């Protein structure tokens, strides 16, 4: 794991990988969303509103994957003191929060025609809103630690504790009666007809590649920040 601890080695891989991830992700997402908007069939009950699915489900997945990434990086940071782990956690926070918000907004727009309401306080919707607030808390905490000085272990502990919400989001529709439907996709099973399933898998892949590219770009930016600060400090000492 410490093979990538050297920032120079990390940058050598991340620098060419970032545009590859971003461009391929944008191409796949554009194709999948065009398919979803113009070619996917209308659903039996939902009609045309089913097309929101192609944004809503990838956004939900990445909102949850973003925090899982924060939790995993925080574990690595706390246990192995890996120098890049804190950067990886901080890099996932903003894109994760953006996708989480996108999930809530797109779901709300779908809920009005499908359920008859923009918002209900059921288990799934509430736990997803809690995740968005956890993201805000994490972003503010990590920024405060960076600004005021302090151990990067503080946001790491917050990131690990917040991970308890991820299984709650997933099981909220199974444990509790909720207005939100249970998952359509499981391991090797699908309650979705093929035209929806393949479009959804493609858009999920595309958004995930974009997410990975953004995380790498943010990690590089954070790394550049740290290096610039170190250089300034060195200059100040010399003069």
């Amino acid at each position, binding site marked *: 794991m410490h093979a990538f601890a050297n920032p120079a080695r990390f940058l050598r891989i991340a620098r060419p990988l970032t545009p590859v991830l971003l461009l391929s992700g944008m191409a796949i997402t554009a194709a999948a969303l065009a398919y979803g908007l113009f070619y996917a*069939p*209308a*659903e*039996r*009950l*939902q*009609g045309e509103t*089913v097309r929101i*699915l192609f944004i809503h489900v990838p956004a939900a997945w990445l909102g949850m994957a973003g925090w899982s990434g924060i939790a995993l990086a925080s*574990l690595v940071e*706390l*246990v*192995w*003191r890996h120098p890049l782990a804190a950067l990886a956690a901080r890099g996932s926070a903003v894109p994760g929060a953006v996708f989480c918000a996108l999930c809530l907004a797109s779901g709300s727009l779908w809920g009005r*025609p*499908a*359920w*008859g*309401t923009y918002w*209900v*306080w*059921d*288990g799934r919707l509430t736990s997803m809103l809690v995740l968005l607030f956890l993201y805000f808390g994490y972003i503010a905490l990590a920024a405060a630690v960076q600004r005021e000085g302090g151990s990067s272990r503080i946001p790491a502990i917050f990131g*690990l*504790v917040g991970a*308890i919400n991820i*299984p*709650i989001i997933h*099981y*909220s529709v199974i*444990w*509790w*009666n*909720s*207005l939100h*439907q*249970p*998952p*359509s996709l499981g391991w*090797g*099973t*699908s*309650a*979705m*007809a*093929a*035209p*929806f*399933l393949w479009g959804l898998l493609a858009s999920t892949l595309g958004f995930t590649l974009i997410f990975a590219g953004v995380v790498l770009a943010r990690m590089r930016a954070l790394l550049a920040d740290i290096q610039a600060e170190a250089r300034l400090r060195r200059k100040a000492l010399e003069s």
Partner: protein
Amino acid sequence: MTAGFKPKHQRLVLVVLALVAILAAGALAAWALKNQASYFYIPSQIVANPPDPDRGVRLGGMVKAGSLKTAADGITMHFVVDDGKAQVPVTFAGIAPDLFKEGSGVVAEGHMMKDGTFVADNLLAKHDENYVPRELQDMSKQQARQTVAETR
């Protein structure tokens, strides 16, 4: 923690113990919330423990096929919500959401009357996890289910 432990192993054990404690606390909380966190009652719960008529509750279940009837005034409808074990008759006057259909899920907000009928102030349609294209709806239920099954 013996002296043979490296610091990182000690940290790993501590973090894992902390995580187990957090997960256990979360699972206990989720379990304790089982009744409070549910968004609605199902018919068998309502029939077993009828709530006070002045208490607002939500009732969720399937709209029983063939039970939906519109009264002579044109806006009042009567239907039966079913969970496979118990059934509750529901009365509702107003505009139902588009997805409200016989045989699909519904969540009714309202009051349970003393005579065993549920008077709803508001209806929410509940979509299930099945996604079926419109072209398939003309097939029989059996055919559609088979088509969906083939994509699994």
